[in-house]
């Protein structure tokens, strides 16, 4: 593969296409959320039975983890050569 091939324009290089992907994901998420109305969940715990439980947990846990990680950096982050004497 030559360098010229690599530098040709790729589908993902266009922000319009990235937006298409994002909106597809949003649409898929909406469908999954609504799907909760149409099946029996066999919940082991009462909270698990709430409408959209897994979607809500997935979304907010993810955000919580990343934001907590950001705070953690303030304590733990050091320059790259920290351990090199």
């Amino acid at each position, binding site marked *: 593969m030559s360098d010229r091939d690599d530098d040709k324009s790729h589908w993902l290089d266009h922000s319009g296409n990235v937006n298409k992907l994002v909106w597809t994901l949003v649409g898929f998420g909406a469908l999954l959320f609504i799907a909760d109305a149409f099946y029996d969940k066999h919940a082991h715990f009462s909270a698990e039975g709430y409408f959209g439980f897994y979607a809500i947990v*997935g979304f907010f846990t993810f955000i919580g983890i990343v934001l907590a990680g950001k705070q953690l950096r303030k304590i733990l982050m050091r320059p790259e050569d920290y351990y090199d004497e």
Partner: protein
Amino acid sequence: MMSEFNPGLIMIIGGFLVPLVPGLARRALLLGLPVAGMVYTIALDPGTLVTSTFFGYSLETLRVDKLSLVWGYIFHIAAFLGALYAIHEDDRLQGTMAQIYMGSAVAAVFAGDLITLFVFWELTAVSSVFLIWATGSERSYRAGMRYLIIQVGSGVLLLAGAILILNDTGSITFNHIGIETLGGKLIFLAFGIKCAFPFLHNWLQDSYPEATVTGTVILSAFTTKLAVYALARGYAGTEILIYIGATMTAFPVFFAVIENNLRRVLAYSLNNQLGFMVCGIGLGSELALNGTASHAFAHILYKALLFMSMGAVLFRAGTVNASALGGLYKSMPWTAGFCIIGAMSISAFPLFSGFVSKSMVLMAAAEQHRWIVWAVLIMASAGVMEHSGIKIPYFAFFAHDSGRRVKEAPKNMLWAMGIAAFLCIGIGVYPAPLYAILPYPVDYQPYTTAHVITSLQLLVFAALAFVYLIKSGLYPAETPSVNLDFDWVYRRVLPKLVRAFIAVFGPIDRGLRSAALSGIGWVMTATKRYSSADGMMAKTYPAGSMVAWVLILLAVYLVFYFIG
């Protein structure tokens, strides 16, 4: 007919032949040994037991049962993939040590007693460190040393525990041990070190990213999963493991978010995956132990696949720092594709391997009504989606284009990744063969409407959260950095304490020693003065003078007697 032997010996003994064989034949040997081992393992019947006597103790050098066979199979598959991934290298030392390492992991799994286990346990440590040292840098040398000390230490604890158990029970057979006795506690600690329990975990994140491109792939499969096997054998149903496991699933997630070196992100992710297995061992039900065994099987494949893809990036781009990568899908499309399959497998998307294995552990936790543990595992699953599902492929292959234009990975690496990816999907789509080899009969159906939809909800909404964080600019930028973890204690604090100790007690010690030396010097001079040829002590005195001295002493004595 020849009696059966431990299948691990095929790769161990074969490994020693590797440096003696030239060129193409060596490559055939490197690939052929795992295949031969696998064929032999498949032919072994559960229930086979081979014992030999050693100094009056009966050693079970081969014990085959359903539990050991699961690990026997997957270790051979991983060994073949690892050897194929590394076949372009012409490094005899690494090739030899990798075979010995992989063989001893297999041999340890089929060991029926604690002493045989100990021997191969230590052999995995001593052989695998060469995969770290082979990088050839000062940094890898030091990381390898720390790794070796900790791994060998684990073996020493195992031996000490085995001796105590032998004293207590008169038997060294490796079955359920439990943490009630001191020996049981020591062995628990030995296994815990190798399994990267919290606070004992840092050797993993410290050493694996320093190993060679191919070495890390091989390391990722064996050491920690051998520990999982050993825990499942010796400590199934030990309640504390539930909490240790749940903690392991949770805390590495935060470190993985902020870590810049993507191979270290994978090491944290490995630690988090071990948590699910350890939790299953603690839960101890048949469903949970099946979950642990199947998750170990699936995990070895997708984790090796992820390490292979990041290894290929390191091999071609010269770095795996997220801050220096991005846009590599343009020049490494196959590697990117395989990486995404690994990422979807570890995240447990339906039709991928993690989906059919991890959920058994979650189900087992729910069945025991342990809702806190269950909630931690669910949240940790969203965390897996963050660091391995999205972060790894996104920052390496997409994100902002770093402008790097490299060659696609070598053919052998692509084949190894391709086979691993095929197996990840194969297990996800058709889990029946995996379920058939699990230690207990499987009464579990992963593909229910509820399981598919709830899993997709969790993962898709986690992905939407990622999109939101990126679009809003809240996602932390990748920056060149290191993050402190528990290894800070023994890499920074302890050396500082030792130095401070030396600074304070050094002068005192020096003073005492010079005082002692001058004291000795004085004694020596005095001895010399009095005992040399003409010294007082060396003179010969006539017998008469001796009698005179006796008389004087008697006189003095009499005087005192009368006075008294």
